[in-house]
């Protein structure tokens, strides 16, 4: 026993070093996909505050007022889009026995929430965007994020009270459902290879699909985060995947990740219900 203590005292620095390295590697392995970490929330709050201060200065150069008014106006417009409302079959209409204030609101499926980008990066392998709106502003995990021109930016990975961390499309773990606008609407998965910002690729598009340079890729709406028809990008290169019967299509992202200022988070009111249903189905099939 005494020898153990002597050993620890003698090699304390080395052991401490190994312990810290081990802890770092543990962090790398476990928090790469950005699950709710014990201190990620507090760290978000702290770094968010600093970033916000910096952004205040940066914003000055971007004609704040003009932008703000445009941004608010856009939100109003987007919320009036037809695709935000789900019109059910009239034969199977659900009856709600309270007074309706607005006859349209009960069908609303998507709500746009405006948010400001206070931090953004493009030059690492896993890029995150931080927004100045968090769970107190109704931002939830898994929400889709689009930029002012309705082009897909990413989805919310983590929220704290006042800030939200968004996994941008430029993240090695990001998987976004996409489809070809032209042709039969073949769907695939948009991923990023981690090399050139703004150039992504979409996989699982079968060779039977008709695709040419310049074609538009839109979101397929197969996930609960992003509705169908949001711009993802434009095809720049069509390659053949040797090992499979699929194309590997390179495309330029429609959103410009180099200068994101304002974005909208899309709240899907059915997200919870769908999630619960899926959980139930999974448990039944166990």
């Amino acid at each position, binding site marked *: 026993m005494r020898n153990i203590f002597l050993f620890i005292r003698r090699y304390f620095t080395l052991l401490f070093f190994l312990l810290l390295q081990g802890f770092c590697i543990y962090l790398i*392995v476990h*928090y*790469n996909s*950005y699950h709710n970490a014990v201190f990620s929330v507090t*760290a978000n709050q702290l770094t968010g505050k600093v970033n916000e201060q910096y952004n205040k200065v940066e914003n000055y150069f971007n004609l704040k007022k003009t932008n703000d008014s445009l941004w608010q106006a856009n939100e109003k417009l987007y919320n009036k889009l037809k695709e935000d409302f789900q019109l059910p079959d009239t034969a199977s209409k659900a009856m709600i026995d309270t007074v309706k204030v607005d006859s349209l609101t009960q069908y609303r499926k998507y709500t746009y929430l405006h948010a400001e980008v206070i931090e953004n990066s493009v030059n690492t392998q896993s890029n995150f965007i931080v927004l100045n709106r968090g769970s107190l502003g109704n931002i939830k995990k898994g929400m889709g994020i689009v930029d002012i021109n309705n082009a897909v930016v990413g989805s919310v990975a983590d929220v704290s009270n006042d800030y939200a961390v968004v996994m941008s499309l430029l993240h090695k773990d990001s998987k976004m459902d996409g489809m070809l606008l032209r042709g039969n609407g073949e769907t695939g998965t948009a991923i990023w290879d981690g090399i*050139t910002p703004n150039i992504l690729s979409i996989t699982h598009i079968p060779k039977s699909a008709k695709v040419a340079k310049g074609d538009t890729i839109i979101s397929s709406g197969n996930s609960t985060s992003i509705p169908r028809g949001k711009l993802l990008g434009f095809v720049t290169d069509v390659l053949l995947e040797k090992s499979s019967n699929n194309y590997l299509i390179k495309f330029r992202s429609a959103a410009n990740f180099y200068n994101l200022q304002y974005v909208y988070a899309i709240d899907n009111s059915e997200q919870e219900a769908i999630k619960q249903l899926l959980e139930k189905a999974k448990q039944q099939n166990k």
Partner: protein
Amino acid sequence: MSTFVKNIIRFILFILVQVFVLDKIHLHQMITPYLYFLFILWLPFNMSRTWQLAIAFLYGFTLDSFRHNPGFHAAACVLIAYIRPFLVNLLIPQEGADGNYEEPSLKSMGGALPYFIYLAVLTIIHHGWLFVLEAWQFGNFWYFLVKTLLSAAVSLLLIIITELLFARKQKFRTNTV
């Protein structure tokens, strides 16, 4: 200014410069210049090694929090903080010189060459470890190798510019009172 206060100011300044200046520069997708770890290279000689490790971890972790990728920079910082004392012992010219000066600099390391070796070795180790972790985590070996070499060169250049711009005055302290 006491060493303690000076180092706290350095801590904050280096982090801010790294996050809000260097990380915003898109020189080329292959190059990410790092300057922040100069803080660790400039830590005083007489600090205990355990404290150096603890501070290096805290420092790296602070940067990681801004980049939302915990672990990478903390690991690299801890590694250079661990190796630093060995390197200082190897490079410092005469016995006891590390007691006469406060922290590593051109003067205290006894000339430009040993100090440059000190900077270069630790820069390469820092970038190298970062490279190993990234290549292991993300794959794509050659891409990260080229990136590391280019980044290390640019980082070294930046460090030398910083040294020239902010010359630190080192007072000679004798042990013989």
